[in-house]
């Protein structure tokens, strides 16, 4: 393999992308964990840029920090505020345009995911509770109020009473943006100082789910007495993340640190309260009561939003700041053209452009991510090229 420098003298520097095969070059690029390094690498030369885009390294960077990103079935990007669906000549050219678009969006997402932030409470409003004993005195809305230690505030949510302590409850909240990075959830169970023995109405375990509503939620429906159980039922939501079960301490405000910072896709967080422990003396029923909830993290860039589609959820990118999708807005009737396998496009483009096949395989991909095998190359997850 010649150096091809066009110089007579020994040149001890060379473009490794020309020397190493695509597989080993890919290993080098996936060892670049910082989005800035990848962004700069894609500006080095045409062949580097093509390689970065065709191999979706920006998507891999996102997946490495937030595996939930694999939930996106496709990407939609608009420029100048309108969705551009160009009618490009050949399908290969269209495929390449889509790959460039995907690269651009995942690059923006990885920058968003890995930027330093100051954690803050991301709850914007309550959606509802599975049950409420006295509505509205003990409404879920009270959990947004911080504890007033001086006055021993009686602002809390109470579930309905149950004979069976294993009967679960849940609290569902809406977050500031379609996409929020969540790293910690704080829950303070309620201690009834006005009752004999000051019982604490905690739960045994707590688990968190995050995702999006299947149908837009209208403000009028939220936190209402009539349709409580209905609104919080799982079939209204698609959950893109479920945490492990955390045991709850019984007597303090507790901070639950998630195993890794999770991107909440769709702005909905469900707090599942499992296993009641405290009976109320008066009626002999088990209750769960919560004083205060905080969901801590960072809302992501306003230029990113999500939209549910028939086959899953789509990541949208609008370079100008826009409101996150209004909860009641029309889902939009854009129908994508039939998805094609990016792998074939990438291979074809790569082979026609620079003459090398990529040779992706599941083992290599797992290896590149240094983790358990991902479903990156399965049918429903390939970045659809529509």
């Amino acid at each position, binding site marked *: 393999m010649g150096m091809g420098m066009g110089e007579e003298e020994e040149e001890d520097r*060379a473009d490794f992308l020309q020397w190493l095969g695509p597989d080993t070059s890919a290993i*080098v690029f996936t060892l670049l964990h910082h989005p800035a390094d990848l962004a*700069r690498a894609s500006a080095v*030369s045409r062949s580097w840029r093509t390689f970065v885009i065709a191999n979706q390294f920006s998507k891999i960077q996102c997946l490495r920090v937030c595996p939930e990103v694999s939930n996106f079935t496709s990407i939609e990007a608009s420029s100048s505020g309108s969705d551009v669906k160009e009618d490009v000549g050949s399908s290969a050219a269209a495929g390449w345009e889509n790959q460039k678009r995907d690269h651009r969006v995942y*690059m*923006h997402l990885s*920058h968003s995911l890995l930027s330093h932030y100051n954690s803050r409470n991301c709850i914007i409003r309550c959606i509802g509770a599975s049950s409420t004993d006295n509505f509205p005195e003990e409404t879920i809305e009270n959990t947004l109020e911080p504890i007033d230690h001086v006055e021993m505030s009686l602002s809390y949510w109470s579930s309905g009473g149950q004979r069976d302590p294993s009967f679960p409850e849940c609290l569902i909240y809406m977050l500031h943006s379609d996409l929020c990075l969540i790293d910690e959830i704080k829950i303070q169970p309620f201690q009834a100082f006005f009752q004999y023995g000051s019982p604490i109405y905690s739960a045994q375990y707590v688990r968190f789910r995050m995702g999006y509503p299947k149908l837009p939620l209208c403000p009028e429906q939220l936190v209402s007495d009539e349709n409580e159980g209905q609104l919080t039922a799982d079939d209204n939501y698609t959950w893109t993340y479920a945490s492990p079960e955390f045991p709850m301490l019984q007597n303090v405000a507790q901070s639950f640190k998630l195993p890794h910072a999770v991107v909440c896709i769709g702005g909905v967080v469900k707090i599942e309260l499992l296993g009641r422990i405290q009976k109320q003396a008066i009626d002999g029923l088990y209750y769960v009561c919560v004083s205060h909830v905080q969901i801590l993290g960072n809302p992501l860039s306003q230029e990113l939003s999500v939209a549910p589609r028939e086959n899953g959820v789509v990541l949208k990118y609008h370079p100008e700041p826009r409101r996150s999708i209004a909860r009641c807005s029309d889902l939009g009737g854009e129908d994508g053209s039939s998805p094609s396998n990016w792998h074939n496009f990438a291979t074809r483009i790569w082979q026609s452009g620079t003459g090398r096949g990529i040779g992706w395989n599941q083992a290599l991909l797992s290896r590149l991510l240094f983790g358990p095998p991902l479903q990156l190359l399965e049918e429903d997850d390939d970045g659809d090229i529509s």
Partner: protein
Amino acid sequence: MASAGSGDEKAATVTLISSDNEHFEVPEAVATLSQTIRHMIEDGCTDGGVPLPNVTGRILAKVLEYCNKHAAASDKDELEKFDKAFVDIDDQATLFDLVMAANYLDIRGMLDLTCQTIADMIKGKSVEEIRETFNIKNDFTPEEEAEIRRENQWAFDD
């Protein structure tokens, strides 16, 4: 290769033959750091030596240096020191050859080490510095380059 003679305690060896016909007799315990060679030994096709047409003698010698050290399973700090010195190579061509040899011979640790070395040559560098490091010609038009930088302005503070 089967050890010679009955009751002989000598460990099994395998002969590796480089592309330039250099022969290296290597203990199996060392050679099997290469998954490729390990499979060949298991399949029993190493009689008469294993030809490695993709690896020169010079590179193979370095590879075996790595395998010898790592097969001896010394202490972690010692291995780290060794690895650091191993990839302290001025000549990029040798480094790239080692990557390719590690890939071909399927030596996971060496592949990770050498690829990480190249990645470290990219990390934190500006675009110009990366081009300088690998002697890469900028083949973008000024407009193309400006557009690429504009897309991710946050990454280009130079």
